């Protein structure tokens, strides 16, 4: 590792850590290019903005997941936390008649606390993140059903107004509040990961936990914070999801944790931790979105092809990652 970092720059070569990210961007550009040529009406600003609008929640969850995976962990509770957030929001707004501005801070706090609790269990008792967050997933889904088994639809005026708010970007294209939040989260996430002490500590833990500890980095505190961030992002994604669906339901976002992990991996973050970019996750989410869009544009392909194509993409990216790791080793 150290020898590789100290190797002299050959000028024209891009930083080897950037290769997966460049690959991801290339795949996105190629897919988008193919779609624009093959399908009429595909190449328009609104189609590309819709990618962001329809996947805003996935993007937000993906940023949280990137931090968890960078630190060498995993979080399976994100989909369930989104469902719980939609459920609490819907119950508070519809049944208890809370306002939006009271509801949102509360659900964000619930999400962050939930994440912090899981992080504390993982850190304090040396538990496997996989099992702890799995239990967290059961708990969050179970809590949804405790609130109500049925879907609660939201008719609150402010919620519907925010949900339908469109910010025009000129040339007839527009974007939703959710998509703007997603972009802001990506920007903030990238800043935290690459420009703060906390971000560097996350990379250090993922790279080698023992060395991070010996360097005197606050490993325990950082790990709890990483899961807190993931919990917060899930709750924020849940808020955006509530605007998107205008309902609360215990079966919302089932299996979303896998989509989020897939987006992070396709975005070039190594699952072994320590290597990756938050911006890559955004591109990963866009690739998942464009696959879906192309299959719906095609019309002749059934929806399950989405899963098969995403599986194939995951395979290709993982094989590339392995080849890349071997070359560096």
């Amino acid at each position, binding site marked *: 590792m150290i020898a590789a970092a100290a190797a002299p720059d050959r000028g024209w070569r891009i930083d080897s850590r950037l290769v997966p990210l460049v690959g991801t961007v290339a795949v996105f550009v190629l897919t988008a290019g193919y779609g624009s040529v093959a399908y009429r009406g595909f190449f328009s600003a609104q189609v590309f903005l819709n990618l962001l609008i329809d996947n805003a929640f996935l993007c937000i969850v993906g940023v949280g997941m990137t931090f968890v995976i960078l630190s060498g962990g995993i979080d399976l509770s994100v989909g369930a936390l989104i469902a719980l957030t939609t459920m609490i929001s819907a119950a508070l707004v519809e049944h208890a008649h809370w306002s939006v501005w009271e509801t949102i801070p509360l659900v964000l706090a619930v999400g962050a606390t939930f994440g912090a609790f899981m992080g504390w269990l993982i850190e304090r008792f040396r538990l496997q993140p*996989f099992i702890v967050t799995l*239990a967290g*997933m059961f708990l969050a889904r*179970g809590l949804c*059903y405790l609130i109500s088994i049925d879907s609660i639809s939201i008719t609150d005026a402010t919620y519907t107004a925010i949900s339908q708010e469109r910010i025009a970007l000129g040339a007839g294209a527009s974007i939703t509040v959710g998509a703007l939040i997603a972009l802001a989260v990506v920007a903030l996430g990238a800043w935290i990961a690459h420009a703060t002490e906390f971000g560097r500590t996350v990379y250090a833990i993922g790279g080698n936990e023992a060395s991070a500890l010996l360097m005197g980095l606050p490993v325990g505190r950082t790990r709890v914070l990483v899961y807190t961030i993931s919990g917060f992002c899930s709750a924020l994604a849940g808020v955006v999801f509530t605007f998107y669906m205008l309902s609360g339901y215990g079966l919302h976002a089932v299996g979303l944790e896998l989509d989020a992990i897939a987006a992070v991996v396709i975005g070039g973050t190594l699952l072994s931790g320590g290597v990756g970019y938050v911006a890559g996750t955004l591109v990963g989410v866009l690739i998942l979105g464009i696959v879906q869009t192309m299959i719906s544009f095609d019309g002749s392909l059934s929806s399950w092809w989405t899963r098969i194509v995403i599986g194939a993409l995951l395979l290709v990216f*993982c094989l590339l990652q392995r080849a890349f790791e071997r070359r560096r080793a």
Partner: protein
Amino acid sequence: MQRLLRHRLFWPFATLVLLLAVNAAFNPGFWQLQWRDGHLYGSVIDILNRAAPLALVAIGMTLVIATRGIDISVGAVVAISAAVIALMIGGELVVKDGVQTHVSRFPMGVAIVAALAVAALCGLWNGLLVAKVGMQPIIATLILMVAGRGVAQLLTGGQIITVYYAPFFFLGNGFLLGLPFAVFIAAAVWATVHLLLTRTALGLFIQSIGINPAASRVAGVHERLITVCVYVFCAFAAGVAGLVISSNVKSADGNNAGVLMELDAILAVTLGGTALTGGRFSVAGSVLGALIIQTLTSTIYSIGVPPEVNMVVKAGVVFVVMLLQSAEFRAAVRALVVRPSPGAAR
């Protein structure tokens, strides 16, 4: 007494006994068995029957986890195997000798072998990605988990395929010697695995791979071959579970068959005392774990708690079990309990 307490299966066994006792307390008829139509009926028999597919998947999962791996594609493999068998058997209505009967599209034996072969192939794919390519097990199997369900839906054309061929129903609904046939299938797989692990060196090899893969390879254990075999077996067991499930519901649903099965199986393995970090494992424990999960579900129904609480209770059980397994937690509790009171310090 001390030896009993320290036995690795003590806690899983105690949990199961406790759950059964709770059941018996709330439901006086819990232990009652009735002999009707030549077989046994009763809550306990029902639990055994329903736990069989989960136990099958958990047995396979135990071996994978014992080698430091994990297989999250088992649910998708269950769906694929169910889709293959349902497609191959089908059951068209034909008139034979003046009687309307349902016939199988392929002989049932061929269909079963084909479905299990497809399942084993899925396992081979996982095994090669893990052992040959060197991917992390969770990612290697994530690929099949995502794509596999798509493949199952592709096979069934997105529909629920109903099977009409009566002999096939025996796998999941039949009775042998008064007990559900599915229980015999699970018992047979368990017995085979148990013999292989205790009568050959395989158990030792698997344990050594789980404790230290590199050292095992240096010591001459065929680490890669065994890893591939373990994944093949896990998918095979999931395939068998898929047959039992599709036979039980007389159909195959590519979208919903085996959903969340991987999580239940991992939970069963953990409950049974197998360490997720590899090495320490117990197949019998995982079977107990599967029984605990099924008993828990029926307890929740029988004591009249609404079924929606099921997941919260399950989460609570997982939290308690994983804390009990953590050495740090036990040390913290011991420090709290053993801490001398101020007066007794001297």
